């Protein structure tokens, strides 16, 4: 199910953003699992702070990349929410 634009996402409290110097990629680490993030994914998750809404995250990134990324951000966060990494 897609998250709404007013939803305020936060990371699962047992997950943390980290950096893997071997792969030179940002990663999400949590009990018994890790997700390798691409640049866009990392940019989205860095803005997930339990305060910003999905809309606000998309706005920040939209300005940065000079294009409307609302659909991409919603889809990405919804995918992580499905796996309970975003709540």
């Amino acid at each position, binding site marked *: 199910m897609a998250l709404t634009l007013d939803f305020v996402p936060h990371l699962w409290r*047992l997950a943390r953003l*980290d950096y*893997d*110097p*071997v*792969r030179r*990629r940002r*990663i999400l*680490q*949590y*009990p*018994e*699992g*890790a997700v*390798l993030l691409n640049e866009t994914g990392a940019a989205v998750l860095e803005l997930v702070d339990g305060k910003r809404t999905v809309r606000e995250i998309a706005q920040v990134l939209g300005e940065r990349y000079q294009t409307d990324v609302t659909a991409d951000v919603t889809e990405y966060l919804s995918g992580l929410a499905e796996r*309970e990494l975003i*709540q």
Partner: protein
Amino acid sequence: MTSDRPTTLLAELTHRCPLHCPYCSNPLELIRGEAELATDDWKRVFTQARELGVLQLGLSGGEPLVRKDLEELAAHARSIGLYSTLVTSGLGLTRKRAEALRNAGLEHIQVSIQDSDTESAERIAGVSSVKQKRAAIALVKELGFAFSINVVLHRANLDRLGELIDLAGSLGADRLELANTQYYGWGLKNRAALMPTREQVLKARAIAEAAIERYRKKMQIIFVLPDYHEQYPKACYGGWGKLYIVVTPNGQALPCHAASSITSLSFPTVREHSLEWIWRESSGFQAFRGDAWMKEPCRTCPRKTVDFGGCRCQAFALTGDAANPDPVCSLTPFRRIIDEALAEPAGAIEYEYRELTGEPQRA
């Protein structure tokens, strides 16, 4: 090449354990305390694993708390950026040790529970243990570790699956792993006493599926169906030598914890070789990579990219050739081996327990 890198190291620090569970994933031939790797060996292995790309470390056993250097090993793992899970029975987790592990930077503790019914739990573990486990769990919660419970499911506890799930919920688990018994090593030896009936499995599946929804956002529940009752085999650790390395107490490096049961292969030890050489060059790790080793029907099967032909250890244990298809697969004639096992009438629940406890501890 990112895909060439392992993500997970399971460090079987010791085979010594106060419990005697009849489905233990350790091999039938247990390694004695004197033969275990020393502290510096393990540190070197962790560092090599991290350099190879490993992100997640399982500190496992046996009972890893038997090792006096567990705190030192956990601190080293944290210092090089590994995310560590302690896989424990809970026995031996005193306040002092739990606090030391917290200070060392250990993040996640997984405690095993044998059953929701005390008498049954202690019969399965072969030792009085429930009270000590509860005390350990209270410490894990109090000190704020990420906390998982794991339960191995089999005929003697499967009918209490609902109670087991609610027990894990009431103990405050963040995650609950419900793993059906796998039948190699000790599990295969005790298969007649462990194998659930089809009715039990179907009922359990419905209970687990409902509970996964009910506990959503409160407790993650992972339920893996027993592969004997499935049509297709499991994709073992994402394929042979792809993501996963196990190092045994005496330093043998394996692609999965049961791989030493495949006696047609040889596996090097971390005493003689670097983990990188073992991962990239050793014949044991290369044996079942890709699909050139596959026989029919796997070789031309579209599912070969889904399950990689299934479990090599199970193929070896049940057919005598590790390159055969996993007999669980309904597309192979070997499936009759599984069907015959399923058709055997349920015998008495009498276990052959594993033993390896009363040994001198190394520093």
